[in-house]
């Protein structure tokens, strides 16, 4: 602030944006979520043109522009860590008390890693390339958090 700025009659008020929504997950997103929720299977889609298995799935390959709606393939619920960060700043939008680990996990049979929570291991012991497996949630949220988290497993 400029030292000569007149702050008389300057006051602040508190406010909040809090607006409930109902989101459509899309046909492809819906099938991914219901399959995950009801069968504990993680599904991707494969683009034959660029030979890429996308997780999360998508209706269209943005590179080849092909329709992938019926190109489902199941990927593994196990994979390996290809990248990670340790979230250490507390905040309201975070799913866990800090510190917790967000990892990029390449599932068996997938070409694109997904981001998810990695638990069951102290953050300082997490390493790239470690093998992990999904732990499915006991109650559904109809989101990717129908996988509760990933945990280390034998390679």
């Amino acid at each position, binding site marked *: 602030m400029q030292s000569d700025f007149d702050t008389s009659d300057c006051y602040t008020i508190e406010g909040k944006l809090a607006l409930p929504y109902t989101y459509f997950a899309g046909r492809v997103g819906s099938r991914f979520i219901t399959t995950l929720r009801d069968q504990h299977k993680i599904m991707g889609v494969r683009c034959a043109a660029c030979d890429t298995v*996308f997780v999360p799935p998508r209706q269209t390959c943005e590179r080849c522009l092909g329709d992938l709606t019926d190109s489902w393939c199941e990927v593994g619920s196990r994979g390996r860590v290809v990248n990670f*960060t*340790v*979230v250490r*700043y507390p905040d309201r939008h975070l799913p866990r008390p800090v510190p917790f680990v967000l990892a*990029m996990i390449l599932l068996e049979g997938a070409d*694109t890693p997904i*981001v*998810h929570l990695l638990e069951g291991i102290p953050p300082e012991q997490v390493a790239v390339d470690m093998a992990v497996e999904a732990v499915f949630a006991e109650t559904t949220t109809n989101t*990717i958090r129908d996988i509760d988290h990933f945990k280390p497993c034998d390679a």
Partner: protein
Amino acid sequence: MARRVAICAAAQIRNEANIWYQRFQGMLLECFESLVDQTGLTFDMETGVRNVVTCSDDVFDARTISDNGMTDVVGAHYRGEEKMAQDGLNGLGYAMAAIMSGHDDLVLLLGHCKESQSESRHMCTNLAFEPFFTRPLGLDFLSAGGLQARAYMTRAGLTEDHLAEVVVRSRRLAAANPFARENAAVTHQAVAASPLLADPLRELHYYPVTDWAVGMLLCCEERAHEFTDKPVWLTGFGSSMDSYYLGERDLAFSTALQQASQRAFKMAGGVDARDVGLFELNDAAAYQMPLWAEGVGLVPPGDGARWLDADGPDRHQVNRSGGMLNGNPLMLGGLARALEAFYQLRGEAGDRQVDGLERALAHGTTGPAGQHHAVLIMEN
């Protein structure tokens, strides 16, 4: 042949941590009045400003259609007014296109962001993630930055010492800029001792919460002399969008930035990074300065650490302003880069002036871990 376009004048308020005592309208009004004072521009419907481009973000402003609350103070009443909700550098590119195309002779550009207004800017950027696969995990731009930092540091051999040097240099250079956010000078030890936020990113590796507003007057070549005797020409612009999901991108090298740069260089007459005397790169975090230097073609892919070791940032005049890392708000980090290049090309950069400068590159990025990139080539 498309018309040439120049920035004829610019105005800003100081970057500050918390401008609680001014509404964003007031912040913009200061910039607006300065532009009128500098140029004598009018709002005559025949010869004056008929089109205004504003840059702002709904979530940071906590109101949708965030432009409609300040069109009066930016002179937009009964005029064309359009809003850019990506980094403001895209607003500059849009205003440039409006003049090149012959749509209008003059465009007024204004941008603002008050990061301090929300309890948490990370809650704001969490909303950039869709609600099924990523948002529920708490991803935001800081944690996405942590993931990108690890990917890039591994690829390019960057260490904590490299990051500390980038931060110390940023603070040192920004201290020469009277409009820069006022930060404490830091030592390498202080950077290395600052708390980890999203490993390997520490608090001082990431830009601080900042409020700011900025304005520019753009004009076609034929009329630029009405407003300035030192026009800065906008000769090339390019942008490129990368994949949405982090897992579909190469976080350690930005093909999108490479493409945006190549488009801008081509439009500027087939120049390349070797022809640029000043680079202003949109580094929200310390690791991004070398990463973006690779993306614009200044540094070979994967050579970021070697480039830093060889004093590359000083030799190539990269972020003489201190960069976004010293403190510009999100959504304006790229427009702030263009503003710095404008002052440099006019010879008005004071103690941070680069001598003999003819061409500069300004870079802006929008989205987590640099999803979208825009590059502007500017010449005097």
